């Protein structure tokens, strides 16, 4: 049921990567638990989750660096679960790039082709192409110690892409870079993927990176694949409390399902809220801070639901303001763009936090 919406898109063609009931155990620890996942050809797919959630293990299983304990792993329709890494049409950009320190940039990039016994003339051509693809011309004779972090990352990309893999795997590709370079490389990676048209599967713990770059995201926690979908689907309709919390900032109000379009908040008030979970299920109402509105308690528009609380603090972010409102049963954050005029309550004032039906989603608790 989880992530079905996401997987439907790829059901009519052969998936680039297809995991069926994949489980990986290390001793008694279950690192990846019964994961089903289809990644479409040409897709930019992110495996997102906190550290230790099994995302890197999943990536390493696709690469062949770990073998699954159970389940089937297909790459373009061919069973690959037990093949060694050198027999798979995939290449990896490792977290710290793993460039061979005793070889120059050029020899690093040529390595994969040399190992595949590609004719020497062709190697020279393809290495040249790959190096210009990642804009490293002029650095061919450098060694990895003589390169900056960003340049090393480009070498790692060229070294993988020169082999024209069917799937490129990237393990926290931007993790080792500083913030500014990371943002620059996000755009560049995306453009590169469009240019080469290869399926990219990347692992990250940074939700912003996943939202920015990926066509689709798979959210993992404790070895379980919780949700698969486009960034918008995942941000706007998280399946449960964990996903809602992990992706972006959110307010979660405890509630119980009363009917398929009504929930009862923890303060006893019934509000409209659509869910297909059974009556009586414990749920949370997910209200994103930027979708919450704020008025004087007597000025709430008629089509809004609201709760009333006391303004505890205001955080000034420059382009926005974050108001923290305290209720006796919850604490809410409201984010407002820093526009001139408008309602600017004082700390300590009674305020109403309100929302329209389409601003919220009901998620499993």
């Amino acid at each position: 049921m989880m992530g079905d919406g996401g997987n439907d898109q790829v059901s009519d063609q052969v998936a680039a990567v297809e995991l069926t009931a994949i489980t990986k155990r290390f001793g008694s620890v279950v690192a990846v638990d019964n994961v089903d996942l289809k990644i479409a050809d040409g897709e930019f797919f992110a495996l997102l989750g906190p550290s230790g959630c099994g995302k890197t293990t999943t990536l390493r299983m696709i690469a062949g660096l770990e073998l699954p304990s159970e389940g089937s792993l297909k790459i373009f329709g061919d069973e690959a679960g037990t093949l060694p890494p050198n027999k798979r049409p995939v290449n990896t950009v490792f977290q710290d790039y793993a460039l061979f320190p005793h070889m120059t940039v050029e020899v690093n990039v040529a390595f994969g082709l040399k190992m595949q016994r590609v004719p020497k003339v062709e190697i020279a051509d393809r290495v040249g192409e790959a190096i210009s693809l990642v804009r490293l011309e002029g650095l061919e004779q450098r060694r990895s110690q003589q390169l900056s972090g960003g340049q090393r990352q480009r070498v790692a990309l060229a070294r993988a892409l020169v082999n024209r893999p069917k799937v490129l795997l990237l393990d926290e590709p931007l993790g080792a870079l500083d913030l500014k370079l990371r943002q620059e490389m996000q755009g560049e990676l995306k453009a590169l993927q469009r240019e080469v048209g290869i399926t990219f599967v990347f692992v990250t713990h940074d939700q912003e990176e996943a939202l920015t770059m990926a066509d689709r995201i798979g959210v993992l926690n404790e070895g379980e694949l919780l949700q698969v979908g486009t960034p918008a689907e995942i941000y706007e309709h998280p399946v449960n409390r964990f996903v809602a919390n992990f992706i972006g900032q959110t307010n979660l109000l405890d509630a119980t399902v009363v009917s398929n379009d009504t929930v009862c908040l923890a303060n006893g008030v019934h509000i409209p809220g659509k869910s297909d979970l059974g009556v009586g299920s414990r749920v949370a109402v997910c209200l994103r801070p930027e979708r919450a509105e704020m008025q004087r308690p007597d000025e709430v528009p008629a089509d809004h639901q609201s709760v009333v609380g006391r303004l505890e603090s205001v955080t000034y972010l420059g382009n926005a303001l974050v108001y923290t409102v305290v209720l006796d049963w919850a604490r809410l954050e409201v984010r407002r763009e820093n526009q001139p005029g408008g309602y600017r309550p004082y700390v300590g004032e009674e305020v109403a936090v309100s929302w329209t039906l389409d601003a919220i989603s009901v998620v499993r608790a």
Partner: protein
Amino acid sequence: MSSTVQPRGTTKIALSVHSWLVYIFFFAPIFVLIVFSFSDDRNVGRWGGFTLEWYQGFFDHSQIQSAVWVSVRVALLSTVISVVLGTLAALALERFKFRGRQVFDALLYLPIIIPDVTMAVMMLLFFAEFFELLEAWFNLDWQKGFGSITISHIAFNISFVSVVVRARLAGMSEVLEEAALDLYATRWKTFRYVTFPQIMPGVAGGALLALTLSLDDVVVTQFAAGPGATTLPVFVFGLIRRGVTPLINATSVLMLAASVFLVALSLAFQQFSGRGGRPLLRGAREAVSTPNNQIKKEIYQ
């Protein structure tokens, strides 16, 4: 220059006097040894004018020459074998998990820890039993000599080689090997193009250390040597019992020179880490970087 951490005043003077005392303590005996190897007097310790006669004697002495030859052969053969076995042991301990790994790990250090004399007695008993068995079972008559010396040197050298190689392997990320596998290298090619070039300085350092240890060993060799063959240090040790002459000085100076050369080479290789090094070591560095050139040549020519 004016850092407060730098010693000043009397401390500074005391420190430099101390270092000179240490240097004198170290080098005075060596200096005396070298000076008297050129002395034209049979009695060591009496200066009889400059001569190269004792060095001439070294090269003319047929027993010394055959001992030198045995030493060199034993050193080379035991080094080659212990480098191969020691490197394999290091690889196994660093890269694979297997039953009894920890026990093997602990036992591997044994030859480094146990006293030379114990090792020597062990070897003596072992060879005695072994030769007896050979005689009894296969009717083979094998005497102590070149073979037994070589085997005993291999026995202690494996440990030293594997310790040096392991240090190097521990500093090398396993991810490099994974990257090579990911880039279509077979396990053998991964070893040849990635693992080995990375551990080369350790292997070379270990080899030179083994060579030095083998050339210098007296105690173990004395027990393993037989009438068939003896090494230079053991022969010199025997000569001393019949009285010290400047011939022994000359022999010692030459042995010292050979050992210093090998130890220096060994240090140079160990210090080279691929991340640059002192200009002094540039030669070693270039020697080590050849695998890359070789790969490059194979790719582009």
